[in-house]
């Protein structure tokens, strides 16, 4: 194995195949740094007092019981939760079918236009969100004047942003499937539409389910597009609320709203991971939820 001659970095990188103790400590410290602040924020959403830094006992006051300031009773907080949910559900319902069809089309279509089409699909993934959001804002101001700011404009923005993610999730599955199943179906007399509906789509069902959930999570977490396309008051989402009142907020109710958002998006993601995992298992491949989620997050 490794020669005995160690130089200055040797203590840091001893033997590449031995347990890297220093690195392990560092890596776990890193994880603590990355996760603990959020956990503390969640913890203080259950604080009995008004402080966001002194623990005064456990209560659900900021979620339920406070008559004026809790998530359930404060109209601003409740409105933000409802707006976020409404947008996420609508985005999910619109973006996923469009994205699934686009993924199928792009995966099987070979022609001169298909390459630029692929590029067009990928571009939103690498465009800074502020550029896309500014563009949509100006387009809605000057061009698509029929679309009012607020929920309709926000919905169109979120869908634009989500379509490429759906395509990316679906595409991995499509390439893995190959074409044998459809060929067999058509050899046995299925029409193209039947082969698609009764063979391909059922095979892709877990990936489609995962795409629904991922779109939901993306939409819940989105800030820039929602902010640029909002019409004020009634269309404030949870991230917008955090942006607007994060600095001035005087009690943990904001933490409570943020925790609601966290639970919603992580819950959706956990389900998506489970769906993708069941798919891999059926196909005989080993996969972890984390590996599956990581695949398309870039």
């Amino acid at each position, binding site marked *: 194995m490794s020669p005995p001659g160690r130089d200055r970095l*040797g203590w840091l990188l001893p033997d590449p195949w031995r347990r890297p103790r220093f690195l392990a400590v560092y890596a776990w410290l890193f994880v603590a740094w990355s996760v603990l602040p959020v956990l*503390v924020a969640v913890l203080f959403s259950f604080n009995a007092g008004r402080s966001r830094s002194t623990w005064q006992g456990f209560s659900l006051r900021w979620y339920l019981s406070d008559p004026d300031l809790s998530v359930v009773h404060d109209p601003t907080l409740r409105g933000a939760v409802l707006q976020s949910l409404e947008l996420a559900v609508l985005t999910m319902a619109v973006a996923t079918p469009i994205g699934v069809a686009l993924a199928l089309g792009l995966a099987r279509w070979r022609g001169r236009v298909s390459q630029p089409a692929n590029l067009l699909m990928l571009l939103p993934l690498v465009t800074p969100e502020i550029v896309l959001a500014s563009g949509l804002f100006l387009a809605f101001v000057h061009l698509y004047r029929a679309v009012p700011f607020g929920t309709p404009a926000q919905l169109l923005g979120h869908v634009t942003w989500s379509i490429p993610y759906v395509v990316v999730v679906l595409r991995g599955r499509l390439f893995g499937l190959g074409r044998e199943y459809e060929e067999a179906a058509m050899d046995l007399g299925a029409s193209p539409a039947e082969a698609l509906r009764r063979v391909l789509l059922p095979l892709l069902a877990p990936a489609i389910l995962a795409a629904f959930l991922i779109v939901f999570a993306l939409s819940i977490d989105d800030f820039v597009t929602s902010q640029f396309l909002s019409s004020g008051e009634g269309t404030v989402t949870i991230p917008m609320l955090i942006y607007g009142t994060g600095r001035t907020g005087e009690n943990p109710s904001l933490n409570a709203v943020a925790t609601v958002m966290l639970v919603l998006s992580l819950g959706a993601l956990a389900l998506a991971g489970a769906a993708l995992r069941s798919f891999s298992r059926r196909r005989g491949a080993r996969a972890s939820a984390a590996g599956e989620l990581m695949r398309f997050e870039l």
Partner: protein
Amino acid sequence: MRAMPEVLGRGRRRRDRGPTGLAALYPRGFWQALAAPGLLWLVALFLVPFYAILATATGRVDPIFGTALPEWNPLYWQPDAFGYVVHELAAPQGIFRIVFLRTLRYVASAVVLCLVLGYPVAYYMSRLRGRARNTFLLLMVLPFWVSYLMRMLAWVNLLQRDGLVNRVLELTGILEPQRWLEGKSLTVVLGLTYGYVPFLILPVFAALDRIDRHVVEAALDLGASPARTFLRVTLPLSRQGVLAGTAIITLPMFGDFYTAQLLGNLQTSMIGSLVNFYLQGSTLGSAQARGAALVVVLAAMVSLLTVYYLVSTARAAREAER
């Protein structure tokens, strides 16, 4: 785990099997018809808005209402707004110049910090196997799905004057309690680092994970010290991942305005804050045109990075296919 090429490359392709293959079974235009709604959507709500930015930046101001009048015909484009942006970028005391240089400083510092903090974690992760690796991966992926704003809110809580950070400092006596949230550059840079470092770790991890163990073993067997092996073999082989990761975090950082806003004040605002201010904070047509011109300049800069990133991942995907 070939995450990157599978995502941004074109993925694995099967050859069409000539006229007897699947292509012949589907009617002409079947797949095109499926792709059409999505493509039309992206044209109408991605490409056209892009053009709307250009048209607004090169448009006029309505003489009566003072609103912006975008110029859709390139033949009549007005350079005024771009002139203003360029002037403010070039003049020594120009407002854009000050903010732009500040943005560059913050982004550069945060990217370096992300690399220094993130690379060892990715390296460690690439050497884990089995359950430990899956657990660690899950922990690394979690921050992706926690809203960015929530993660910043967490730090706003911690960094308040009577927040936990100051109290720990007071207890241990390392530092005097600080006013972290009142325009400190350090806070904003650390905030950016905290926000974006997970996005860097995964591509670096993917690159490190692809390295053939035998290559590293060979270097060691041939007498290279572990450190030399790392510097001459592992590090160069992970270059693609480092570059991809850097591009992935740099792109959104240039457009970020919320981190500096939540963790700082006007003294720490970034270029994104100016875009936000000019487009959202004012109804004046001239402000809107200037904001649009600023977006175009920002997008042009960023697109250089984007093109580089797309080209290099496509190349990596091709190599992986071989």
